[in-house]
């Protein structure tokens, strides 16, 4: 392979379709074997939802990184840096810093007080039924938006990577991705899903590392020269300065602040991330998981900085924008420029695997929440045995998988970054205040939890519906209509403080007091791990 390939010819990409498919098929085959082997010991509910709590901190940390580094963050951030320069980089900083909330305030305490789902923790010392239902609804809402984003992303990725540009062909690929995902989750449960995440995370980080090294080598390992190259190709010195995307108007500046708030406070409240903390045996391993994921995610985002500016310098913004996948094609085009069809095939296959793995993780989270929180606790009123619960969870997987396929086909072509940001905003508004209050505020009551969760959830969704994302602008989902009375694309700056306020207000206005014994139990368990650490002795 030569070091410098002349300007990327987009038409050449189609010739690599077979290679891309071959590498992807290889990934599917290898992971399927691992999933089947891993699933042999799946017997109890803890096996199915929480992988028997058998993963180590480093393994789980890698899987968390695999969950978190979705196609939206790999392709999306690289593309954003390539086109918008510094503003794309700011995205990745919010995504990383957010992990400190998880590390310091949430991960270990949550591991010690819950069993399978976020609702376990939230309903621990409050009234079971109403809180569990509210937590399950917000879990399903967040998973749904995140799922839709991944499936929609699959459609637009395919147009570039496999050269399938017609709607029917893309729909077919979305069906294939969805069907594969259903199989992984049905067969492998949490254990299988976790292994897929681990393998995918390692491939993604390795691929990004090779490309980063390569780009840096071209510029003599001088970051300043690389940045200079990006400015030269784009002809825009502002590529290195903030403001290219968000600095246009006063509204867009506030919008960025709002997005930052949602990113930083949303991560530690994403149900599929929270659920991963139950796959390790102890709080200490949960801590190690977060430490590993912070390092992996941080290093990966440093790679995307180089890759983004590398794509801006070597491929050029005009070529990227003109390619079938638009902004999302920056990383694949850079791979083609550097390593030709083979590296493109590898990066494409990893991008597919990313979607597959993230969708699988979301599906098992949503299914667990439905089976464990709604079916077992509310419909069967706690009388369902574990085997029935797992059966319900498996059926839910199929239903959610079919919904994701339908949603993905319908949402194909929608703005992926917006759907992901919405998921973060909903998580930060609906979940985080209640998680923090119930862990740290002794007086917090059921009424406070319900006001905060339903208030935060509906505020986030209503504000989005009334924002320019949905109507009133050229890029809106419904371009013809205009009912955008809320000027920001990100609701976080309003909905998150509102949810915190409602949690406080609902509590101080609540005449009922919660059980002080349960509060004591939750506090002691959360900090010491009493009872929850037993698994290490078996």
């Amino acid at each position, binding site marked *: 392979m030569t070091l410098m390939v002349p300007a990327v010819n987009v038409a050449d990409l189609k010739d690599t379709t077979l290679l891309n498919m071959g590498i992807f098929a290889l990934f599917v085959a290898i992971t399927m074997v691992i999933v089947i082997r891993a699933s042999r010991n799946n017997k109890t509910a803890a096996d199915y939802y929480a992988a028997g709590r058998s993963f180590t901190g480093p393994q789980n940390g890698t899987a968390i990184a695999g969950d978190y580094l979705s196609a939206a963050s790999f392709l999306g951030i690289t593309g954003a840096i390539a086109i918008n320069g510094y503003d794309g980089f700011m995205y990745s900083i919010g995504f990383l810093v957010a992990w400190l909330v998880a590390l310091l305030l949430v991960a270990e305490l949550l591991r010690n007080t819950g069993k399978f789902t976020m609702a376990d923790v939230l309903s621990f010392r409050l009234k079971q039924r109403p809180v569990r239902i509210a937590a399950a609804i917000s879990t399903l809402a967040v998973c749904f938006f995140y799922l839709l984003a991944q499936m929609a992303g699959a459609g637009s990725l395919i147009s570039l990577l496999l050269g399938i540009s017609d709607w029917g062909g893309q729909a077919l690929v979305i069906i294939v991705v969805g069907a594969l995902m259903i199989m992984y989750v049905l067969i492998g449960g949490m254990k299988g899903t976790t292994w897929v995440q681990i393998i995918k995370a390692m491939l993604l980080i390795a691929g990004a590392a090779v490309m980063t090294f390569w780009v840096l080598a071209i510029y003599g390992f001088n970051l300043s020269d690389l940045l200079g190259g990006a400015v030269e190709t784009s002809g825009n010195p502002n590529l290195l300065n903030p403001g290219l995307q968000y600095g246009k108007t006063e509204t867009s500046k506030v919008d960025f602040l709002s997005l930052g708030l949602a990113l930083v406070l949303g991560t530690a409240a994403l149900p599929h991330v929270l659920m991963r903390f139950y796959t390790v045996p102890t709080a*200490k391993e949960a801590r190690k998981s977060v430490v590993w994921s912070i390092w992996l995610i941080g290093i990966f985002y440093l790679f995307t900085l180089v890759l983004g500016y590398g794509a801006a310098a070597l491929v050029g913004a005009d070529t990227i924008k003109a390619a079938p996948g638009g902004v999302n094609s920056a990383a694949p085009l850079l791979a083609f420029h550097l390593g030709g069809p083979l590296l493109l095939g590898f990066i494409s296959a990893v991008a597919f695997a990313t979607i597959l793995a993230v969708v699988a993780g979301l599906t098992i989270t949503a299914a667990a929440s439905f089976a464990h929180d709604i079916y077992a606790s509310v419909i069967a009123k706690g009388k369902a045995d574990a085997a029935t619960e797992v059966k319900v969870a498996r059926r839910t997987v199929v239903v959610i998988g079919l919904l994701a396929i339908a949603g993905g086909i319908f949402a194909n072509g929608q703005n992926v970054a917006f759907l992901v940001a919405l998921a973060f905003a909903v998580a930060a508004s609906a979940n985080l205040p209640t998680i923090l209050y119930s862990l740290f505020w002794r007086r917090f009551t059921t009424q406070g939890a319900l006001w905060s969760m339903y208030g935060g959830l509906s505020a986030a969704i209503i504000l989005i519906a009334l924002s320019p994302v949905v109507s009133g602008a050229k890029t809106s989902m419904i371009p013809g209509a205009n009912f955008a009375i809320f000027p920001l694309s990100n609701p976080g700056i309003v909905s998150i403080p509102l949810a915190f306020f409602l949690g406080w207000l609902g509590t101080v206005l609540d005449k009922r007091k919660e059980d002080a014994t349960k509060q004591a139990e939750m506090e002691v368990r959360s900090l010491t791990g009493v009872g929850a650490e037993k698994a290490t002795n078996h």
Partner: protein
Amino acid sequence: MGHDAQETDAAAAVDFKEVQSTEQFQELRTRHRSFVFPLSIAFLLWYFAYVLLADYAVGFMSIKVWGNINVGLILGLLQFVSTFAITGWYVSYSNRKLDPIASEIRQEIEGHEFDKHGNPVGGTAK
């Protein structure tokens, strides 16, 4: 493996209110909160200061320091450095100040249960 940690919970009959009121537990809670709360506020302030600078002080962020490396890039990379540093600091603090007390309390509770029920489930989780 394959056991659900809390379904086989030997700590179910513990008087948690009593444990909560012990000096030892109060000390653990104080140590935990006096570390994580100020640090959380600090990193959130530092992050939003950075976001506000990028939003409203574009001129300052664009000052070139070395070659094409400007203030904005340096501050952005410092966000990475501070995230890694806080992570390391918290881990070392937990290992030194939190884990020993937590495991003592756990052993007391679970050891107590061991005596009461004659159930040999030694609370020796590390």
